[in-house]
């Protein structure tokens, strides 16, 4: 094997922008060449991770904005997608992919990080799979296995309309939506926001191709999709259009609502017995904590103020809360799952 197959699908519709790489991965065999694919959707839509609930989305808002919702076969949460995002996918035979997910990301997101650096962005791999500039996410990533193919996917965000993303999400309150937007503006960046306004889509593709070819020690070979891949892509387009696929797999209903902005920034809301709690956590700190509802008195609000602005380490937070007796324990029960989900 000497070649890295490069399939540039160019500008595509929403369905094909997802079906393309699902189909390429599905037709992989043990002998297949690694394939780097690119696409850029011309119509905005919302992508949803395989195990995530449709309830995380504001269906009415998506419908009003004519945003299709497409459930992908890889993980992660809901994402707003438009033509200011260039998507890249590396598909390779499962037999040659690292069997552990952190190693898979380290090996195959590393070239993307290098490509960002070549484009003038001081990117780094943060945590398992966030490509960031300091604490700002510059690329959404994910991975999965479809058939005998393993995929690592990501995007180059040229510009990101944070408000359109939050408009597509369901929140229990306007204040939590505003808090999410605030954190998203701070922790989701783009080439434009980082000052790299001169980078073109072609330049990004060329740089990613060179970087992945170097990592795999393969020569890039521009190709188009094969007839077998087109059949598989068509199958995925039909599946994505099927309401049963969109409904997703049956998974238990979770209590509370968590919107993850990056590996270390998220907002959490939950309620129980007439008491609601909203929290935002970023970079190891509880930035905002609001408790309201039946029986909530000045004592609870004082405790919430004491917690906000300090470490989000679950053990430390719970120790502090338990020292406040019944009121503290009530807050701990509501806040605890929102600290531990990560």
């Amino acid at each position, binding site marked *: 094997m000497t070649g890295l197959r490069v399939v540039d699908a160019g500008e595509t519709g929403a369905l094909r922008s997802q079906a393309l790489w699902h189909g390429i991965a599905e037709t992989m065999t043990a002998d297949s060449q690694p394939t780097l694919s690119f696409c850029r959707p011309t119509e905005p839509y919302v992508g949803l991770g*395989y*195990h995530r609930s449709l309830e995380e989305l504001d269906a009415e808002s998506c419908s009003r904005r004519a945003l299709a919702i497409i459930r992908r076969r890889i993980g992660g949460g809901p994402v707003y997608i438009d033509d200011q995002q260039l998507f890249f996918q590396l598909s390779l035979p499962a037999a040659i992919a690292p069997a552990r*997910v952190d190693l898979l990301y380290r090996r195959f997101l590393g070239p993307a990080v290098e490509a960002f650096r070549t484009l003038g962005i001081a990117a780094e791999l943060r945590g398992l*799979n966030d490509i960031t500039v300091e604490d700002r996410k510059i690329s959404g990533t994910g991975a*999965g296995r479809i058939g005998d193919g393993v995929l690592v996917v990501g995007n180059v965000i040229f510009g990101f309309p944070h408000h359109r993303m939050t408009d597509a999400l369901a929140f229990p309150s306007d204040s939590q939506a505003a808090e999410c937007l605030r954190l998203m503006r701070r922790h989701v960046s783009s080439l434009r926001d980082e000052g790299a306004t001169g980078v073109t889509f072609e330049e990004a593709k060329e740089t990613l191709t060179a970087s992945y070819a170097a990592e795999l020690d393969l020569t890039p070979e521009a190709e188009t999709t094969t007839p077998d891949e087109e059949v598989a892509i068509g199958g995925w387009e039909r599946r994505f259009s099927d309401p049963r696929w969109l409904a997703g797999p049956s998974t238990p209903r979770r209590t509370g609502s968590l919107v993850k902005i990056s590996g270390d920034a998220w907002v959490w809301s939950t309620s129980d017995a007439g008491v609601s709690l909203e929290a935002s956590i970023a970079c190891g700190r509880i930035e905002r904590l609001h408790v309201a509802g039946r029986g909530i008195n000045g004592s609870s609000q004082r405790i919430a103020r004491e917690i906000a602005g300090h470490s989000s380490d679950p053990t430390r937070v719970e120790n502090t809360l338990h020292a406040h007796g019944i009121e503290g324990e009530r807050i701990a029960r509501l806040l605890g799952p929102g600290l531990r989900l990560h």
Partner: protein
Amino acid sequence: MTAQKDQTGGIDYSRYFDRETHLWVKTMSREVVRCGFDPLGAETSGDIVAVSFEPPGTRIERGAAFGSIEAAKFVGPLLAPVSGSIIRHNHEVAAEPGLINADPQAHWMIEIEPDALDVELGELLHGEEAVREWFAAERKKFEHEGLLAT
């Protein structure tokens, strides 16, 4: 049957093991087997955040997907170690997937009514000596590949 457990890795040698997928099979009766991850399978999966299963009644072939697993935004199929019909899922595991990481042998994922138990059990690894040797070799291989902490 009394479970025979290895002191270090917690392997229950009375079970059958699929070498490809690192899933165990436990025969509850002639009509019911349970499946779950062995400790190496759970460890190399990463922190599991979601599992989903095909509905009860679904017929699956050995090697076909009976569900999906998600860890760190990676979604992969769960491949059946035996053919048969899915009887039920472990709802506790579906609600709290991290239990698989915490104690994979105590937390089964699905029960299957097997089609060809005698034939397919023969394709799985069984017996203390064979399992012990395989598990030690797999652990060594995974450590060599950097898949496990040494």
